[in-house]
């Protein structure tokens, strides 16, 4: 059995090597037509850019995405530099008309998306010509190998129960080199995904055949990400169910979170556009969904008839009504560990790393500062972008600068900083990339503005708590060790106090790993939900402290 597992792991490693090497073994040749039509469609007027692209890029056989991206980058940047220099010169000559004309030649946007758009239709080579084969070699074989490994665990791990044996000895789960390799892969993946999509274009070819199911048109890097996300969550979700097969709470929760990811964040997003509707993730809620009030989203929704308007109203009611009401009744777990995609990945792919969260009081203090800072940042950004959207809808003819400027600050600036710092670096690169080192909930604990918002409700007005079972705690520390949110659960349990921390996402693992049945996640009356600071734990009759409560 263990031998088969070893073979499965080796096979998985080979598929990962294949996946990474696919980036290097397939080239690009951009055609004249691609360049001309793309420049036209984007309204890029620069003759210099066009000429240089046609001379230096068109027809050239690039051996991989890196060299192609590099060339397009230098052409794009140098062309813009020439036009900018010209603008400056015209301005110094006070030739305002010429300056304005020349300004039109400066290409908007960044070279990364530009390179992606030119390269996506221009692939050739083995990966591009054998998409189906590569899909099988990577996604297919990796899934099969993982499933074999996971299902054999049903036998290898023995009877159902908590099986955390070796977590602090195994290389991957105790920050050994495998963890560092995984960390590097994830970080580089996110950097590629967010900042250099043209570099990972071969990966999008691999998933093109899947995109064809949803109407084709070529997979974007976001389609690739979505498919990878769903695959990882489904397979690691099965692992979670195998691991906790004695625990129905974990089984139900895992099925729920995988369901919401696959159906709402992926399938519906892909299927709705096939019917001419906007592909929206209906479960994604502001302020996690920070671009909800961006002008492009609002105008897009309002332009999409009844469905678009429904989505707009749904989004607002989700954030302002449904979420606080649900958090009142069930705690923020209903979202964070039952519905949310970020939480879903953390609970499945990230589960092997949950023990790495920092439990110190220091980390808790840091958490409270930074997560509420992000919430404030999100609120301010939304006010600014909301202002812009309002003007866009009601005063479309207003000057662009006036639309984006409120109190002298540009909403474009705020939102691009937010998108860069919070949306990309924090939630992606750090939030997921750092799983193997800092644990699986870094984003949810320190960065998610929605978690901060729900946390405030959970802490002060909710029926949810983790009940501590009288005097049964033996301070062993399993609960704290396996709390992905870095809550020192034991600190409460050994004092006989309920846990009502704002950061608790209700994953239920503390209760599962407790060897003495001390913890229970439950929703109940608010009375005594927050335990009094009772120094004497149940079981000692020598004292009658807090008699008003114990005698009731």
């Amino acid at each position: 059995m263990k031998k088969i597992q070893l073979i499965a792991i080796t096979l998985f490693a080979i598929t990962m090597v294949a996946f990474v090497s696919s980036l290097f073994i397939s080239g690009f040749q951009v055609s004249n037509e691609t360049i001309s039509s793309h420049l036209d469609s984007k309204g890029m007027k620069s003759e210099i850019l066009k000429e240089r692209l046609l001379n230096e890029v068109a027809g050239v056989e690039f051996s991989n995405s890196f060299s192609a991206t590099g060339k397009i980058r230098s052409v794009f940047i140098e062309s813009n530099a020439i036009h900018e220099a010209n603008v400056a010169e015209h301005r110094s000559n006070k030739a305002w008309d010429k300056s304005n004309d020349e300004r039109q030649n400066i290409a908007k946007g960044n070279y990364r998306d530009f390179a992606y758009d030119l390269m996506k239709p221009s692939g050739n080579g083995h990966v591009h010509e054998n998409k189906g084969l590569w899909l099988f070699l990577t996604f297919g074989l990796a899934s099969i190998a993982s499933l074999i490994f996971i299902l054999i665990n049903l036998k290898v791990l023995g009877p159902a129960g908590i099986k955390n044996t070796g977590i602090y000895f195994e290389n991957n789960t105790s920050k050994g080199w495998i963890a560092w390799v995984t960390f590097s892969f994830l970080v580089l993946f996110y950097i590629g995904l967010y900042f250099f999509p043209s570099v990972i274009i071969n990966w999008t070819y691999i998933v093109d055949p899947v995109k064809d199911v949803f109407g084709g048109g070529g997979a974007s890097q976001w389609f690739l990400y979505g498919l990878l996300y769903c695959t990882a969550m489904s397979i690691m979700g099965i692992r979670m169910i195998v691991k906790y097969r004695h625990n129905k709470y974990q089984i139900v929760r895992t099925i729920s979170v995988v369901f919401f990811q696959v159906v709402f964040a992926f399938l519906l997003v892909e299927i709705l556009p096939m019917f001419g509707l906007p592909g929206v993730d209906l479960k994604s809620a502001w302020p996690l969904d920070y671009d909800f009030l961006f002008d492009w989203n609002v105008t897009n929704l309002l332009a999409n008839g009844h469905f678009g308007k429904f989505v707009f109203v749904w989004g607002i009611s989700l954030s302002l009504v449904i979420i606080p009401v649900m958090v009142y009744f069930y705690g923020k777990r209903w979202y964070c560990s039952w519905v949310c995609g970020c939480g879903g990945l953390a609970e499945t792919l990230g589960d092997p790393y949950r023990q790495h969260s920092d439990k110190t009081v220091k980390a808790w203090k840091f958490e409270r500062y930074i997560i509420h800072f992000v919430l404030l940042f999100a609120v301010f950004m939304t006010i600014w972008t909301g202002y812009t959207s309002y003007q866009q809808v009601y005063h479309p003819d207003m000057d662009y600068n006036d639309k984006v400027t409120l109190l002298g600050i540009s909403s474009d600036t705020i939102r691009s900083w937010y998108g860069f710092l919070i949306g990309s670096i924090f939630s992606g690169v750090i939030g997921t990339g750092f799983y193997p080192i800092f644990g699986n909930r870094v984003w949810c604990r320190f960065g998610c503005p929605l978690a901060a918002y729900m946390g405030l409700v959970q802490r002060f007005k909710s029926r949810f708590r983790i009940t501590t079972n009288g005097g049964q705690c033996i301070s062993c520390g399993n609960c704290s060790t396996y709390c992905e949110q870095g809550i020192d659960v034991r600190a409460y349990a050994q004092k006989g106090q309920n846990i009502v921390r704002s950061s608790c996402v209700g994953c239920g693992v503390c209760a599962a790993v407790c060897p003495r049945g001390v913890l229970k996640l439950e929703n109940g009356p608010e009375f005594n939900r927050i335990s009094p600071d009772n120094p004497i734990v149940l079981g000692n009759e020598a004292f009658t402290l807090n008699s008003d409560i114990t005698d009731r």
Partner: protein
Amino acid sequence: MQEHIVIIGNGISGVTCARHIRKRSDSKITIISGETKHFFSRTALMYVYMGHMKFEHTKPYEDHFWEKNRIDLVHGFVEDISYGTKTLKIRSGEDVSYDKLVLAVGSKPNKFGWTGQDLPGVQGLYSYQDLELLEQNTHPYGTPENKQRVKRAVIVGGGLIGVELAEMLVTRNIKVTFLVRENKFWGNVLPKGEGELVKRHIIEHHIDLKLESELDVIHAGEDGKVSHIMTKSGERIDCELVGLTAGVSPNVEFLKGGDLALQRGIIINQYFETNQKGVYAIGDCAQFDEPVVGRRNMEQVWYTGRIMGETLAATLCGEKTKYNPGHWFNSAKFFDIEYQTYGWVFANNSEGEKSFYWEHEKGKMCMHFVYEESTGKFLGLNTFGIRMRHEVINDQLNHERSIDYVISHLADANFDPEFYTLHEPEIVAAFNSQTKYKVQLKKKSWKRILRLSK
């Protein structure tokens, strides 16, 4: 001048006592321990060996806690105590003088004079040092089969530590033979049904469980290490490790020969006072001259250690308080099966007691209720595989509820995670068919659980 309270031992008893003294007073507090510098959870040592946690994780308080709470820590062994001058001699350090002294020195594994009991490769499991020794005596986690130092281990004594040691060794792929003197597992504590259930589960984990087997002699090989043991029935078992887990006894060796009254443990009264003025003893090492009614004179479990610490702290801070533990409770885990007990369920019912026993069809869960036959008064409960709410059961015991009340309110008492299958209807049906009672299961009521109504 501040009063100086010195506590020897930083286990749960001593540390709980120190914390509660600090809550109540400004006395100078010093905890002396030779075992480790910082308090850790003894019950969690097994998880360190199995790789569930690192030793760091077994510390219930961060290291800065002690300074913040002005509790001085001295890492060293006490060699001698002079009760007259109120000073302690520490093996490698300065003398310490005290105004009040708390002995919370714990216990050590029993050794019953077996031949070979001190050979290399023979050990108990109690202290941090025992864990270190076990690491030395066995091979690291993940060692390939042909390089494993220990192929088979023999564990002597069928109690909680024995089953923990078995679970630990199995994670290093060591085959385990488990010698148990009684004819059922943990026979002096568990009734027959529960003993059978645990026995089945131990065997399910491939432990070679030998009931009614006693250790006779431990033999060494040519290298001077353990090579095999002989049982009293003459069976030879080859092994490279012997775990002695036949209970523990107070760690009072170093106190012998002084003026302190000792028997098996340190003799104390209901206020934890020893025969020496200003000297107290709590936890595993303490032996009551007169036990609390219905309880043993030595209580060596986590919870009683904690309760003693809480109680003594009050006395030391001027509020003289008797040891008055509430209803007995305890818990443990046998591999994958959790166990809780509330009130008294003995291996054999006493005169006038009656049992109601229910077991799930798969044989991994059971409940055993004991009540007075004549009055129906509920006396205690063993539960395996189903968690119970301590507060609810404690309240039922306090109010001397009858067995039919307890059974009909099982839903209040259930503490299993959400979505778990509830077995209460089945238990109630079994109760009605086995006894003269006819009860109906009441729906779970938060009002009752929180004692907002009767």
